[in-house]
């Protein structure tokens, strides 16, 4: 199952801080969109609103024909690597979403098996997360989200804790897995090349207030290979996005430095 995700003019205030201003993103079913932006552009807030853990002050989020009001199994989440439960085995972690929603029937069990197989975890079912590498743990996170067979897959900087090489491998792995089910994927990242490499479109956010700066179509053919990252069109696109956020990033770094002083 795969469905549309519409973020309709979502705004959010925290006191005086305007975290999001009228963010508007419409995703087709099966589309892969990445969001890039500097620290403080409201990415986390946006994710929490889509999750249904935070309520927007204006606007709303729709999945298929349904308005988001609370967390639900129509959304699968992949977080940074530390979100696996240490006291659950790989299998139990992968089945967690289904278990919490009371959907762990025979069919779902079969799907957990398939997803572990798809993510390259067959044979590791009874391992503890502690026994796995960072890359492997992210595979479990992905399997856990996919096992729900969600309409939309939301990935919040899932590879940020990985080293550069593992990261590249995981990017190609993610695309391979995505080609199988073609979920609607909203992928949040700091890394511009990662966003371009994975996506159909890249949404560039600005900060203070968090808002959509520009949406960039990526018309690289699929399936994509890591060699594409060195093509001139690719590099030009990275430069362009970097140009859009550079001032924001510099400001955010400056602010961090002032706060630390």
């Amino acid at each position: 199952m795969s469905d549309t995700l519409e973020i309709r003019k979502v705004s959010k205030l925290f006191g005086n801080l305007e975290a999001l201003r009228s963010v508007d993103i419409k995703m087709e079913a099966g589309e892969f969109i990445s969001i890039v932006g500097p620290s403080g552009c409201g990415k986390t807030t946006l994710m929490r609103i889509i999750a249904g853990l935070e309520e927007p002050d204006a606007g709303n989020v729709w999945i298929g024909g349904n308005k988001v009001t609370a967390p639900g199994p129509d959304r699968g989440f992949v977080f940074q690597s530390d979100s696996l439960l240490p006291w659950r085995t790989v299998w139990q972690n992968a089945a967690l979403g289904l278990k919490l929603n009371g959907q762990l029937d025979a069919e779902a069990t079969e799907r957990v098996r398939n997803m572990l197989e798809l993510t390259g975890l067959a044979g590791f079912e009874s391992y503890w997360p502690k026994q796995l590498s960072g890359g492997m743990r992210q595979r479990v996170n992905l399997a856990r989200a996919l096992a729900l067979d969600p309409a939309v897959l939301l990935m919040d900087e899932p590879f940020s804790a990985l080293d550069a090489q593992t990261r590249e491998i995981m990017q190609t792995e993610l695309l391979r897995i995505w080609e199988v089910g073609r979920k609607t994927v909203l992928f949040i990242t700091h890394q511009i090349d990662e966003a371009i490499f994975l996506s159909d479109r890249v949404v560039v956010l600005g900060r203070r207030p968090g808002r959509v700066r520009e949406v960039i179509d990526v018309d690289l053919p699929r399936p994509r290979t890591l060699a594409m990252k060195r093509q001139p069109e690719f590099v030009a696109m990275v430069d362009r996005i970097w140009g859009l956020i550079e001032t924001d990033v510099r400001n955010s770094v400056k602010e961090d430095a002032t706060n630390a002083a």
Partner: protein
Amino acid sequence: MSAETTMNQPTDRPQKQVGFRRLFGGARTHRSQHTGFLSIAGGLVAWELVGRLVISNSLFLATPTQIAAQIYNLMRSGELFIHMGVSGAEFGIGLIISIILGIALGFLITTNKIANAILGPWISALYATPTVAIAPLIILWFGIGLWSKVFVVIINATFPMIINTEAGLRATDPKLIEAVRCFGASPLQVFWNVMLPSALPYILAGVRLSVGRAIVSVVVGELFGSRAGLGFMITQASEVFNMPRLFAAVVVLALVGVILTAGARYLERVLQPWNK
């Protein structure tokens, strides 16, 4: 089959053996176990020599061989087991109530701000107070039977449980809670799936502390008023200067303490196979 092999261990890894050595040696190497054994044996020999050659008056010191003989006699007559049974019941009932009460109160003050505001100061104050000091008063209130000692155990052993449960629940990684909530977990599911397992190491460490406190409480409670028990044995023996008998009770208590603490450690490992 050991308990650990039933806990979903990866089958291609060698199973760790569970036995006497692991129970008492933990992860230590053979050599340091050897050293530990030699240290105890050397100490006993020295004690024996001092008892025979230096302080030979048995009013002042009993030697290990005398104590061992005394323990053997007490076991043969069955007297030791009567006293152990009485103390054991006081200890067991008191400890179980302390553990349940401690976890419940720890959970209450973590999740309920009002309860925390009301109970918090009392808990901090009583945790640091040597409440064994009021044991005589409790004997006065509850008599010299079983329940006065159970009560002494409770007022001493509950506080480490409360404090550790609270610390454990508060130490839960907020990212894990957030992740599980994103998957639609109810507050109750968050508690069972995230907070409780996360707090388990703290709770079990609390049990270990409470075991020690409970043993001391039983003995102190019995010193102030009782008809039987290991503490009663100690009082009785000291009144007539029967040193071997006094030491026999002390040694039995020490051994029980070692075994129970090792048991608590073993429990920590078995209940958390992911933490090896």
